[in-house]
């Protein structure tokens, strides 16, 4: 069903592109908006409100600030949608768009984007010194036991492609975005359901360590079909409100 859907969508899109190309040849003009394809009663049509910023099919916006949402784990996306709606995360346009959407629809939107398996672009050229990136890699792979700082890999998977359904992958994200998110977690600007494990981790990181981690992560290629590993049952080093398995009594958000 979902596959048929996807096929017919891409068929439509191909058809749309051909028509567009022909029209461009004939009239020298073609609407650039993503909605130029014929109307379909599908999720892809419904989430044009999202892809305006997050890029076609949620592959990420052009400026490095709107992250890729395609292929992220469904539980993670659902939690982020709820966090924006309930203003634990702050970005006015997201807060406003989601304010009046209920959990059922947010779950469907999350499931839609989670189900997209699209290739990633190659990583951008490595930024920062080799020494900085080495420091970042050490933190990602080993953390710092002396400070009880867990390794990124402990939760986000050995391949850093995430753990379904709640823990996102860390690859394929721009350095600016990673810096902004870790910084926001550190200052309390970005929050998750309590207990907020990422806030705890980010507060242990010095600003230059955040820079190191982001520089190294952003330079890593994403393996093909980088689906999140499905070892959700494995223990996490910290209790996380957003991960159902570690927080059985986590509040369910505003049940509307």
């Amino acid at each position, binding site marked *: 069903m979902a596959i048929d859907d996807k096929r017919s969508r891409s068929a439509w899109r191909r058809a749309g592109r051909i028509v567009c190309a022909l029209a461009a040849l004939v009239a020298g003009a073609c609407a650039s*908006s993503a909605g130029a394809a014929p109307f379909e009663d599908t999720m892809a049509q*419904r989430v*044009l*409100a999202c892809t305006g910023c997050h890029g076609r099919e949620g592959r990420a916006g052009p400026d490095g600030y709107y992250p890729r949402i395609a292929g992220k784990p469904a539980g993670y996306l659902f939690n982020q949608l709820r966090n924006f709606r309930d203003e634990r995360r702050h970005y006015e*346009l997201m*807060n406003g768009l989601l304010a009046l*959407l*209920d959990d059922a*629809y947010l779950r469907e939107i999350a499931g839609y984007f989670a189900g997209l398996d699209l290739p990633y672009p190659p990583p951008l050229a490595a930024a920062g010194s080799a020494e900085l990136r080495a420091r970042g890699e050490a933190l990602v792979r080993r953390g710092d036991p002396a400070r009880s700082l867990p390794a990124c890999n402990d939760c986000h998977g050995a391949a850093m492609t995430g753990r379904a359904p709640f823990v996102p992958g860390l690859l394929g994200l721009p350095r600016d975005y990673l810096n902004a998110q870790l910084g926001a977690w550190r200052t309390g600007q970005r929050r998750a359901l309590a207990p907020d494990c990422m806030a705890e981790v980010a507060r242990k990181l010095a600003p230059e360590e955040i820079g190191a981690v982001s520089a190294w992560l952003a330079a890593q290629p994403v393996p093909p079909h980088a689906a999140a590993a499905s070892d959700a049952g494995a223990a996490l080093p910290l209790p996380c409100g957003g991960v159902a398995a570690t927080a059985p009594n986590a509040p369910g958000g505003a049940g509307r």
Partner: protein
Amino acid sequence: MKRARAALALGIVAVLCAVSIALVVWANRDDAGEPAAPTALDAAALVARGEYLVRAGSCFGCHTEPGGAPYSGGRAIETPFGVLHAPNLTPDATGLAAWTSDDFWRALHNGRSRDGRLLYPAFPYPNYTRLARADSDAMFAYLKSLAPVANANRPHALRFPIDQQAALAVWRALFFRPARFEPDRDRSADWNRGAYLVETLGHCNACHSRRNVFGATAGPLDLAGGLIPVQNWYAPSLYDNREAGVGEWSAADVIALLKTGISPRGSVQGPMAEVVARSTQFLNDADLAAMATYLRALPGAGAEPSAPQEAPAAPSERGAKLYADHCAGCHGEQGEGVAGAYPALAGNRAIAITPPSNLVHIVVRGGFLPTTAGNPRPFGMPPFATVLADRDIAALLSHVRASWGHRSPAVSTLEVSRTRGAAQR
């Protein structure tokens, strides 16, 4: 002689002051209103009735913070006079734990808190004063049934002298009297029920009426439309069929709009989307039909615009290009839209309304219709805040307001900037 005159003048002033103070005090006296009467409902039915009425009264929107426990208060309400914080309505010590149903009735009917303080009319007691006592008691029973949530009330941050109880007393002397709902014997029971829901419980005029410099509306019966302060959304007139009047709509379309957020004649946006999501979608069909009866019977507007209109905008190449690039994909090259998904812009009265601030809000912020039982998977529009500059939005909207038969005034860049400022507060 001079001295005697001065003394006389002073005396007159003193007497005038004393009389004014006496008048203000007199105007602020409590009205006992209806006494409590035993209810025929058992406890569970009373709570269920109360929940229904609390929803019909749109209490959630102010008394709940985003992501917070329902009715636990804390939401900041910005007004031209400063910021008010809606109090906690759950039965915690920081909320209504110590309140009785008489206290609650006094708050709704007289606008006075349990401790005797006068309440600010951001709490719509100028409307709620007409509630039936039985409804007040049911609402109170529901709030008392909620799980207590500890959330201490935050003090309001109002400007001087608005922050003074004496100033509020003067405001009330001028603009508020306790009242009761008087049914119109010449109208049907249906119409009267609709009047009660629209004027009293739903407090529709809190938005759909112009406010004077003192923040007062022309009363719960005025629904002539107004700009919502601070937010800068325009709540259109419910009289005028060129704005949001429904005199020419079928009852079914009015009911669909209030129940699902979308109807063949239009859909809800901005603050009204919130009203549908939090309130009217939960009303039963009989009450929605009553509201439709009342709204459809409101006096319509005359054929001529009440104020002289500015010259209509002219279509522009730049506006047409922006429309083709960003809008036509969904709304259609001729503004025809897609039924059930993307509103038609041709023939859409929301396009033509002046002030055009709602159009600016919609382009800047985008939005989904609210999820409702009747429209659980709404379509959405992306925000253009990061895509279009103020002058682009002005050109685009001016073009749309001059296309497909629209003949509305142009939208200036200044107007866009002002509204965008409000949108991105």
